[in-house]
């Protein structure tokens, strides 16, 4: 657990009047960067599964990164993952609530319709993917689309339990910490999610 000692030392130094040594801050930043780089793509895909819109998913992931680094960086690094996913899930729910409110307001307000053609184009959007589109890959993409649709149809807690346990590979204890519930609840949510998904995807898969 040497790295935790390093982190704690870094933050103890912050508490004293003397400035933190550059080495300690660098160590702490490197640790966070490594963690975020490792987790960011999966987190984005999970947010996208829940929200569908990639821009909303990016916003939620960016917000979760900021909140983690600002408020919880001093915590021991094994706590970062459950904390990050708890922040992310809260962000997803907030985004879903905002959408619902926006939708209700927009139905009452007359105004111009959103034109997707007017949005600024990102040049990177036109860069071709490294892997060519082969039939097998297309089939996989289609299967994933079905899975995403079924996941969106699940209750939020079941979806969350399934994604954290299955996609992120968290154990029951970590998932319980991320979901702020008991380990028994995680097992129940997960089991129900697997049964519901299999029932929905049975014909397609």
């Amino acid at each position, binding site marked *: 657990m040497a790295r935790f000692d390093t982190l704690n030392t870094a933050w103890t130094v*912050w*508490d*004293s*009047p003397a400035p*933190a040594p550059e080495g300690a*801050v660098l160590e702490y*930043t490197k640790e*966070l*960067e490594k963690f*975020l*780089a490792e987790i*960011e*793509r*999966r987190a*984005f*895909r999970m947010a996208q599964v829940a929200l569908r819109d*990639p821009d909303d998913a*990016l916003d939620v*992931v*960016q917000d979760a*990164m*900021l909140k*983690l*680094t*600002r408020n919880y*960086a001093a915590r021991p690094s094994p706590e970062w993952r459950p904390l990050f996913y708890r922040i992310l899930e809260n962000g997803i729910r907030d985004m879903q609530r905002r959408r619902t409110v926006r939708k209700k307001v927009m139905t009452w307000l007359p105004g111009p319709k959103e034109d997707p053609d007017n949005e600024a184009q*990102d040049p*990177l*959007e036109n*860069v071709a*993917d490294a*892997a060519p589109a082969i039939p097998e*890959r297309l089939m*996989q*993409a289609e*299967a*994933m689309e079905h*899975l995403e649709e079924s996941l969106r149809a699940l209750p939020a807690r079941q979806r969350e339990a399934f994604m954290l346990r*299955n*996609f992120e*590979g968290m154990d029951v204890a970590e998932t319980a910490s991320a979901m702020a519930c008991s380990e028994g609840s995680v097992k129940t949510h997960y089991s129900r999610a*697997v*049964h519901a*998904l*299999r029932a929905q*995807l049975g014909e397609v*898969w």
Partner: protein
Amino acid sequence: MSEQDNEAFETRSRALFQDSVDGLDMRIRSRLTQARSAALEAAQRRPSWWLGWKVWTPAAGVTAAAILGVVLWLGLPPGHQGGTVADAQTSFEDLDLVASSDEGSTDALDMLQDDIDFYSFADKAANSGPAA
């Protein structure tokens, strides 16, 4: 639905998810990298909590004292509000006179008791009205 089927389903869904993560386009990857950099930059700019504590505590103390002063001032009975410095000084002198001891008497209150006949007379004279 057997346990084995469940495991196969879990394995397949995990593999599909990982494929979709690996297949993210360059635009998304680039924006995620930017988001990470922004978050780390914000973490490095984060002021140490003790600095905030040292700056804000005296300010909070002064503010609290000012609020307490105003509350006490506004909370006084109406007769005591808006008194001048001269009024306050007179009250203080009266208190001082009563509390102090003169030569020949051990307590100022004793002096008042000595003249009790005079105060009775003065009271009757005041109530009987002007002499004819």
